[in-house]
């Protein structure tokens, strides 16, 4: 029997043969091991891939609440006069006129309009932006930002902070017992809170499709806070394996897999990240190409697929036409525990991108039929406030 890698290294480093010299440990490393987490190398760190099992952890999160350690991700504090306008030069979000404490999803773009990273940013003050970027790309992101931002903008990588997400329908109810006031946030709202005298920055967001929060915690308080969280009956520690199957069911792209520097936001079906003011000004990197694709349609587009049968079709499988020629590729795929069937994301020719279209996938010499379907595969349950 041979094992294929459970989790990919991810990011652009895969392509240029990058090997970390040393696998680093994060603030909760010992905590995960004590809780029975199975540790793997991911984005240069030891990270828990699972505790009791991906299936059980996935379903627990959908019904209760899961604690995810995402401290491998990069937390940046970017400060200076005009920081919002300066960042707008590198991404298609409207930032300078954005409300404070409201998180936005955006994309770091190269000159050709390709995606260097996807990220969350939150204006905390007129001269301060908090940003969360992917772990596998964070040093490249910092290099890109340092190179392109004006000298009077300061970039602080918050390596003395852990990042914990609690996700699931009971997440906010449970966290609110420890952090009063957190329940008042609505989806994508953020704010400063406190636990046991430690400052927290909490955003009502996540990457599982569920309601929940992401919490930036000083490293020295991370273990005690994680203990307090899992002492709540609704909250169990959940590994990165279930985080990946949850985000796949939620239809959310994963950088290094569904997104990379050769893919534009329009191909990736992330048109919502192109803000109206920015489109009208056409003043973000790659704007000419991106706006032309938006107008005329991209050559290939990211779609969701329901795969027939029981066998998962995974990243790297080909999308083939009736002659067997390769016309696209699967970028994420696996068994969806909530759906109870294999699902995938793939890039397909625009003519095949409409829901209901049947496509053929080829994996290890075997053909699989799949049907293009609207995403998410499992409905989002974000809390957008009481109407």
């Amino acid at each position: 029997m041979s094992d294929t890698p459970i989790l990919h290294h991810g990011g652009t480093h895969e392509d240029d043969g990058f090997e970390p010299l040393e696998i680093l440990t994060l603030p909760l490393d010992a905590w995960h091991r004590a809780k029975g987490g199975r540790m793997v190398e991911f984005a240069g760190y030891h990270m828990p891939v699972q505790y009791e099992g991906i299936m059980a952890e996935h379903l627990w999160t959908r019904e209760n609440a899961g604690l995810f350690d995402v401290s491998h991700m990069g937390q940046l504090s970017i400060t200076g006069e005009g920081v919002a306008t300066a960042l707008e030069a590198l991404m298609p979000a409207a930032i300078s006129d954005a409300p404070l404490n409201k998180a936005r999803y955006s994309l770091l773009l190269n000159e050709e309009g390709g995606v260097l990273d996807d990220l969350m940013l939150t204006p905390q003050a007129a001269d301060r932006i908090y940003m969360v970027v992917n772990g596998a790309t964070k040093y490249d992101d910092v290099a890109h930002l340092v190179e392109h931002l004006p000298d009077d903008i300061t970039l602080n990588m918050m390596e003395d902070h852990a990042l914990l997400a609690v996700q699931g329908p009971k997440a906010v109810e449970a966290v609110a017992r420890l952090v009063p006031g957190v329940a008042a946030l609505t989806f994508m709202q953020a704010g400063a809170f406190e636990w046991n005298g430690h400052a927290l920055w909490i955003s009502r967001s996540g990457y599982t499709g569920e309601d929940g929060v992401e919490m930036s915690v000083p490293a020295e308080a991370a273990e005690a806070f994680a203990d307090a969280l899992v002492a709540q009956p609704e909250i169990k520690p959940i590994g990165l394996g279930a985080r990946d199957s949850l985000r796949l069911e939620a239809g959310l792209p994963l950088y290094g897999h569904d997104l990379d520097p050769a893919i534009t936001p329009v191909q990736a079906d992330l048109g919502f990240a192109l803000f109206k003011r920015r489109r009208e000004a056409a003043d973000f990197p790659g704007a000419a190409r991106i706006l032309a694709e938006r107008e005329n349609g991209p050559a290939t587009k990211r779609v969701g697929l329901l795969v027939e049968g029981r066998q998962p079709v995974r990243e790297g499988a080909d999308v083939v036409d009736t002659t067997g020629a390769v016309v696209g590729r699967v970028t994420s795929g696996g068994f969806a525990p909530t759906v109870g069937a294999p699902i995938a994301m793939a890039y397909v020719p625009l003519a095949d991108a409409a829901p209901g279209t049947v496509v053929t996938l080829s994996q290890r010499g075997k053909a699989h039929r799949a049907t293009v379907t609207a995403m998410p595969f499992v409905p989002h349950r974000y809390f957008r406030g009481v109407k």
Partner: protein
Amino acid sequence: MSRYFTEDHEWIDVDGDTGTVGISDYAQGQLGDIVFVEVPDAGRSLSKGDEAAVVESVKAASDVYSPVSGNVLEGNPALTDEPALVNSDPEGDGWFFKITLSDASELDALMDETAYAAFVAKL
């Protein structure tokens, strides 16, 4: 009946010239939740070390190699509907296929249960 193991974590029970093949309890524990198993068709001829079956967990696909040469008698039909049998009873009802051995001397290179337990303990 004797049971042998490979370093790739297959096991084979041998009764006369018939072998029953599966993956070890250690292997299923490493793989996690099994969601799909593809077993070989009856009549297929396999050489020792050939890819004989595919086992898929939630996250990964793995090949299962034939521990011996021979002709496949049957694949386990129960795994089609219930792949999780590999998790719940890996060294029993979760077997993958039965094979007629063409060269019983190939078993000499495999480990017995004691040797396999020692092998796994070092991993």
